[in-house]
């Protein structure tokens, strides 16, 4: 299969390239020229080709919670969102703390998945925060990082040992930063709006205390700390200071943290409930600033599908989480690029070259010759409304339903195959 994409604007942040030209794909790889005539010629005029987007934080729910999402549905939703590689978090059932579960996910992804799936393994057995999982063996079977996402490691000694132990495997430790005592029973940001709504609040410090501790432990051990879903101005500041001190730390945020505030939280709309919770305008501004100055390296979805029944109940009872695959790119374009927080290339880097570098993904995250042909094609003039009936994910829990976007994904190519197009 030979594909030629012609007259397209090519943006490759890693190579620092932005020009109009042609892309050639043969045998699933990006090549300088084709050995024979192209089987498929794609006209790219007015469109933009970027390296396939890498989403380093998602929940595919399989195995164990197939009513919420499966690898089949989740990877299709990802493909629609222009995402060619997803990391799936280990809070499945069973959790990803053993080789058979890793192998099952990789097998299912190969058999039914549309995009690349890289599992994140548990840092501790059962994600109980007590004993390490077999991190070295899990790495050999294919995990790209370790995390007890959703269940932060409260014991500092265990966190210290994990940061030390993962160092020799070059595996980042992804931290879901939450002081569980401080956030206990909380369901939204602690502030004026939680008072008005009568909901228990989660102070920003519940996130910042653990980030502070983990920065110190990263400094102590030299391990690689990756902070997941940064949501507060204080966290951005802590990470910035740590980077200045050359501590090995990287960080991600999600589109909702640079787009929404807790002003939108409504008692009868649990699509406004996620962890960490939506914060305030000054936090949104700081997250944008952190993205602009490089403090925050990556943008990820934290795609967390839930069933309608799970979400359509009392705010306190509904689970935390929203879906994100199908809106991430348009939100980045509209909220960061159009508002001149980031250049298009720098914005794309947050989902391509940066995650590829941080998690050492070979031959992905750039369009240079010889790389795997994972490509996302964007139409900057594509106007659409995000409608509930158009959602491909099994989960329909998005606070962005009804939002109008300008610019979106029109084609997704994985390993040289067109897996999705409009």
């Amino acid at each position: 299969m030979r594909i030629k994409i012609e007259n397209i604007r090519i943006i490759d942040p890693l190579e620092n390239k932005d020009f109009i030209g042609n892309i050639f794909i043969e045998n699933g790889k990006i090549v300088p020229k084709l050995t024979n005539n192209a089987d498929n010629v794609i006209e790219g005029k007015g469109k933009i080709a970027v390296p396939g987007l890498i989403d380093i934080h998602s929940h595919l729910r399989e195995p164990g919670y197939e009513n919420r999402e499966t690898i089949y549905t989740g990877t299709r939703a990802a493909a629609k969102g222009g995402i060619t590689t997803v990391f799936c978090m280990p809070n499945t059932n069973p959790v990803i703390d053993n080789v058979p579960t890793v192998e099952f996910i990789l097998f299912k992804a190969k058999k039914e998945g549309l995009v690349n799936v890289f599992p994140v393994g548990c840092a501790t057995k059962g994600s109980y925060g007590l004993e390490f999982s077999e991190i070295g063996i899990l790495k050999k079977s294919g995990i790209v990082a370790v995390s007890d996402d959703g269940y932060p490691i409260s014991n500092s000694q265990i966190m210290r040992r994990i940061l030390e132990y993962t160092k020799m495997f070059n595996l980042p430790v992804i931290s879901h930063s939450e002081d569980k005592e401080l956030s206990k029973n909380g369901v939204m940001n602690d502030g004026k709006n939680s008072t008005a709504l009568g909901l228990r609040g989660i102070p920003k410090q519940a996130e910042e205390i653990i980030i502070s501790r983990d920065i110190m432990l990263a400094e102590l051990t030299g391990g690689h700390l990756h902070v997941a879903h940064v949501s507060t101005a204080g966290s951005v500041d802590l990470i910035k200071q740590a980077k200045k001190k050359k501590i090995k730390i990287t960080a991600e945020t999600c589109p909702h943290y640079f787009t929404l505030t807790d002003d939108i939280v409504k008692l009868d709309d649990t699509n406004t409930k996620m962890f960490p919770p939506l914060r305030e305008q000054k936090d949104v501004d700081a997250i944008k600033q952190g993205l602009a100055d490089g403090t925050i390296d990556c943008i990820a979805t934290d795609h967390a599908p839930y069933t309608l029944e799970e979400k359509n109940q009392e705010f306190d009872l509904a689970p935390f989480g929203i879906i994100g695959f199908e809106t991430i790119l348009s939100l980045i374009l509209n909220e960061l690029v159009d508002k001149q927080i980031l250049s298009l290339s720098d914005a794309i880097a947050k989902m391509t070259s940066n995650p590829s570098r941080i998690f050492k993904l070979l031959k992905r995250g750039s369009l240079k010759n010889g790389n795997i042909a994972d490509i996302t094609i964007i139409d900057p003039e594509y106007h659409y409304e995000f409608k509930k009936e158009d959602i491909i994910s099994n989960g329909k829990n998005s606070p962005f339903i009804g939002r109008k976007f300008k610019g979106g994904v029109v084609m997704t190519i994985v390993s040289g195959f067109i897996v999705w197009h409009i």
Partner: protein
Amino acid sequence: MNRVVFINRKDLLGLRCMCKKDLQLILDSVKPFKNIFTGSIKKVPLLIGKTVATLFYEPSTRTKTSFEIAAKKLSADVINITINTSSVIKGESLIDTGKTLEAMKSDYIIIRHFFAGAPDILARNLNASVINAGDGFHEHPTQALLDLYTIYENKKKIENLKVLIVGDILHSRVAKSDIWALTKMGAKVAVVGPSTLIPANIEDFGVKVYYDLDEAVCGVDVVNILRIQFERQQENFFPSIHEYIKFYQLTMKRLKMAKPDVLVMHPGPVNRGIEISTEVADSSNTLINDQVTNGIAVRMAILYLLKHENKKEFNV
């Protein structure tokens, strides 16, 4: 007499989003209903044939009874459903319970729930009128309306009155609804209590914060005392009831610092000798029993005023 106009809403979920005009309309509508049930007629056929369901997920005697009497005085049929909380958590969802009540042709569902927003969820999913009888730490609108009416009845105005709310503001839905209603009507509202039980950002809503009751009570027109929940001590909000009494019990000595015609209110049930001394509870300034009577009149007015099909305007 007054011609009653309806409020253009199906549900009463809270007062934060209610406009001053509607609050005034409710205040102006209570009197005829109070006349009905405190007078010789006692009962009118305004809601004849309507079914009012009370759905209580938390124990309550006075609010539930008050609603029940209000509905019966308007000739509605009342069904009471008390839910054992533990069986609900593993069983039928709130929405399904509401839909069942609607299928039984309930026109009104009066709900009390331990979670904030439960009435909002019911209201969104049902055609029946939903009335919030207290949800979590969110709102208790009919309690605040009866507080508002009781003040209005005695002082003939709300504007510029100094109202002090004493106690656990953080966990009190009554305090929240009182604050929304009173501030909208132009009262000067202050709260006093242990700093752990005052939300850090309550001043953003135009409320003055005190920690010292002696200071806070000076010159006020109304003191509304909240019931203190003993379990807050176990949750480390204050060290002991003993210490709470020392700093926050409304005593005669403290009450003397307020205006001479100060009104003392309490949503009940009262912990005598804890948040309020027996002497104050039984003093002539105290309106606790008037609040109970007014509660019925206010709830009659609400049942009548909510927009509901087949209801004819009437003149009293």
